[in-house]
């Protein structure tokens, strides 16, 4: 799909029966989830922000100070998958939101799709100056035709998550044990959309981030089938996966990485580690994921949302965003590093983060993602 195609399919059109239906559909979704934007608990506030985000961004320790100091009420709509969040906004819900925090590739797509505003990097120069050099403007993964679609907010890597009480880290310098009969019924694949597919494809020698031909898709099918054969469970629930990892019924989690490691490490399970396998036949095996926050494009005033965007990437708030109850993740703000405790730094595996970065692909939306998800679905049905 070309960028022109994307622009052609923008939701900005004169009001038609179809767009009205889409709007009604989006309204029905909001009503069903009980999160009607614009209806906040803080009815006395002068302004309001409707915020679609992943968990963690909605922490009271993050939202409350901003609400109080700016006399603003923030209504949150939590998303559980980035693609679903994108689809919801694209179906018309973008009219009601001010901010969105989602996976970087989806934020990057929202600019050209007309869902989020392009931001002027110069307006955020102060924020960029505090970031690690890798995330400073122009930050390529969030750029479209020289314009930025948002600011990076959290990141980490995808690789084997290992309990070192049971396995040596050296064992997982490759994804080979996933297919080793010695590990039969000891592997847990995380049922998180495309996340478990990508590392398996990389192990098969296929770069899933390029346009794939039938032969390469067949290779991906084979590697998914082989992994399923050895897998004990395909689990979507993080707590179940973490419990199995701790008690040893799962020897390794595939498709997760730091997202399912850091909170365990922060609560004392520092023997749990996520690593990035070594390159195989010249192909990097790790994946860097990143979340970003963008400003929604609609006729609402973006001033207060823009202020929140600057607020959420500031060092003090970035620390709160990094360490949440459910997950702990790295943040792009370099100045924030000094504010972490030694335990938090250890939990986030900060001493390893640039090694992981150097040995990883940056996660983007794969051109053949739907083909790969269809293969996953077919092979899952055959289990």
């Amino acid at each position: 799909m070309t960028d022109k195609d994307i622009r052609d399919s923008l939701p900005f059109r004169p009001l038609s029966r179809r767009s009205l239906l889409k709007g009604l559909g989006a309204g029905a979704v909001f009503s069903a989830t009980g999160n009607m934007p614009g209806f906040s608990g803080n009815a006395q506030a002068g302004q309001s922000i409707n915020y679609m985000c992943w968990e963690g961004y909605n922490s009271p320790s993050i939202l409350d100070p901003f609400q109080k100091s700016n006399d603003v009420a923030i209504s949150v709509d939590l998303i559980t998958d980035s693609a679903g969040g994108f689809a919801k906004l694209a179906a018309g819900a973008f009219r009601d939101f001010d901010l969105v925090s989602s996976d970087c590739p989806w934020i990057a797509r929202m600019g050209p799709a007309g869902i989020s505003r392009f931001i002027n990097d110069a307006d955020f120069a102060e924020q960029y100056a505090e970031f690690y050099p890798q995330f400073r403007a122009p930050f390529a993964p969030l750029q479209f035709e020289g314009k930025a679609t948002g600011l990076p907010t959290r990141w980490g890597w995808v690789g084997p998550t290992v309990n070192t009480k049971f396995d040596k880290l050296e064992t997982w310098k490759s994804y080979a044990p996933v297919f080793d009969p010695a590990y039969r019924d000891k592997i847990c694949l995380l049922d998180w959309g495309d996340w478990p597919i990508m590392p398996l494809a990389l192990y098969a020698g296929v770069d899933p981030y390029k346009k794939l031909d039938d032969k390469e898709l067949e290779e991906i099918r084979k590697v998914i089938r082989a992994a399923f054969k050895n897998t004990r469970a395909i689990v979507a629930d993080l707590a179940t996966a973490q419990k199995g990892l701790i008690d040893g019924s799962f020897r390794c989690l595939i498709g997760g990485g730091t997202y399912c490691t850091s909170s365990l490490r922060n609560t004392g399970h520092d023997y749990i580690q996520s690593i990035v396998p070594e390159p195989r036949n010249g192909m990097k095996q790790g994946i860097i994921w990143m979340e970003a926050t963008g400003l929604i494009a609609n006729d609402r005033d973006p001033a207060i949302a823009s202020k929140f965007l600057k607020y959420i990437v500031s060092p003090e708030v970035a620390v709160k965003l990094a360490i949440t109850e459910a997950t702990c993740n790295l943040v792009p703000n370099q100045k924030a590093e000094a504010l972490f405790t030694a335990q938090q730094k250890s939990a986030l595996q900060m001493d390893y983060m640039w090694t992981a970065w150097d040995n990883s692909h940056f996660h983007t939306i794969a051109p053949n993602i739907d083909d790969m998800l269809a293969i996953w679905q077919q092979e899952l049905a055959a289990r």
Partner: protein
Amino acid sequence: MRIEHKSWRDPLLIGATVPLALIMILFFVVPLIMTGILTFQSSRYYRLAWTWDLTIWRDVFGHSHYWVVMLRTLGMSLACVVLSVLIAYPVAYGLATRLGSLRHHVTILITFAFLTDTVLKTFGWILVLDQNGVLNWGLSHLGFEPGAVNILFTPTATLIGMVYNLAVYPIFTLYLSLARIDRDLQLAAYDAGASRFRTFFEVTLPLSRPGLYAGAALVFVLSLGAFLEPKVMGGGNAPMASELINQSFSTRVNWPLGAALTLVLIVIGSASLALSAALTLRRRGGEQGRLSDVG
């Protein structure tokens, strides 16, 4: 009791049915039509494309894995119905005839179990069935090998979860049927020389059929839509239809495909219920014919 026959042209009757009819049209018929319309569109790179073609239906009928999952769902649902009824009948029978003053206490306990959050109960089973769970801990103290029972993340675990969460429905429907049976009919059977066994099969069981059918239908319909149990306890082994539909809607963001699979599941469920209703009516007609012959 005098039964008053009313015409459908009666304005009072029409007035009384209009609110319900409107609710049904608005919240059942319209969404169903919209779901049907969605199946003739397609999904292009996570966006709905209004194409008005048969692409999705070709996809559904052209890939066997969708039907494998649908048939598996049907099989699991039927197994769940059988197991639930087999468990529910003795429980309901005991409640209705044997527990005496304890009946209300047991009913309250069952109601509490029923009202406890299903998510909580299902995740609780993980702690029981896990390799290092309560069950294996107990068995190891009885001399069994550690991890002797390894059924978590299998279809068996899914079925256990489904039966556990759904068996309560036939318990209540059967209890209501059994409690309404005239005790004199059973005593008359004993007086006529029937054994307990024969009395049960010729008096109690036939008279409790309404509760049995209602409970079975409830379990069947709810089993078809079971999502939590296969997802949490099945661990991706032998996934069921609702998981397939959820994947299509949320992970693949292919709403037309999800809508088509939803309709397929509705048709399979409705057809199964219609078939079982037809067989039941046919059987009942045969029994009534035999009785009139005897008379």
